């Protein structure tokens, strides 16, 4: 009996006082893409197990589209990216009424890609 009361006293109230709290720093949440760093190596698209990342190469630009609806937040894309163009943040509030909002696409120009490619 005394142990039980002591346990309750120690634990105190665990219920969250806020509706939304920030996720821990190491939480794998929304992946963000920085187009200026991308070299167009397609490592992220090939390594993605859910097929959430697709790369489309045009004449002068490369379009990377990332679907949060498909993403399983495994973090492999961030791991394989050599230039850290994709990074996972601790943002978790992704709920939406419109499914099209879940697909984010970004463009990187090919000229930049070629120059960075030469450097590598």
């Amino acid at each position: 009996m005394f142990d039980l009361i002591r346990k309750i006293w120690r634990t105190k109230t665990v219920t969250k006082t806020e509706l939304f709290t920030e996720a821990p720093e190491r939480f794998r949440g929304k992946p963000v893409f920085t187009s200026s760093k991308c070299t167009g190596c397609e490592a992220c698209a090939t390594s993605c197990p859910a097929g959430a990342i697709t790369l489309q190469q045009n004449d002068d630009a490369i379009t990377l589209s990332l679907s949060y609806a498909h993403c399983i937040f495994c973090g492999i894309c961030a791991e394989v990216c050599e230039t850290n163009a994709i990074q996972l943040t601790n943002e978790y509030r992704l709920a939406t009424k419109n499914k099209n909002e879940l697909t984010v696409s970004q463009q990187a120009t090919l000229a930049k890609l070629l120059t960075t490619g030469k450097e590598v």
Partner: protein
Amino acid sequence: MKSGKEQTADLRWALQKRMKEVLGRSLHIRHVDSGSCNGCDFEMNTLTNPIYDIQRFGVDFVASPRHADMLMVTGGVTRHLEEALIKTYNAASEPKMVVAIGACACSGGIFGRTYANYGGIDHIVPVYVYVPGCPPRPEAIIEGILLALDRYEELSRNKGENRH
């Protein structure tokens, strides 16, 4: 001017306030498992534990779709559970708010669209809100509920306009 403590209290009860505005009563949720791996189901159960304690806002999980205002669907609709989902949807009372929880329910997730998996519940039933995540945090599910209430308000307003 409200003090900081009062403001956080307001935010905390925002869900209950919103429910009273939109529905005028508490919100009852029926959970439908359409072939999920149970990851999202665990996160949904977490909502009722002492840490999140969503029942203090008047949100309750019920055992029958006939009692429910909202259906929370997890999993990417396997061929065997398609019928169960359709039957549950038909049995649910109006408004049939359908919330897709997790990557599988949103788009098929890691399983994708195969011969045994439909790849997203929006192929079968109309969806109000998509909550992506594998699994989504319980807080993300709370946000999904809030968005579904917004959507219901929009739709009911439009319905009223069409009638006149």
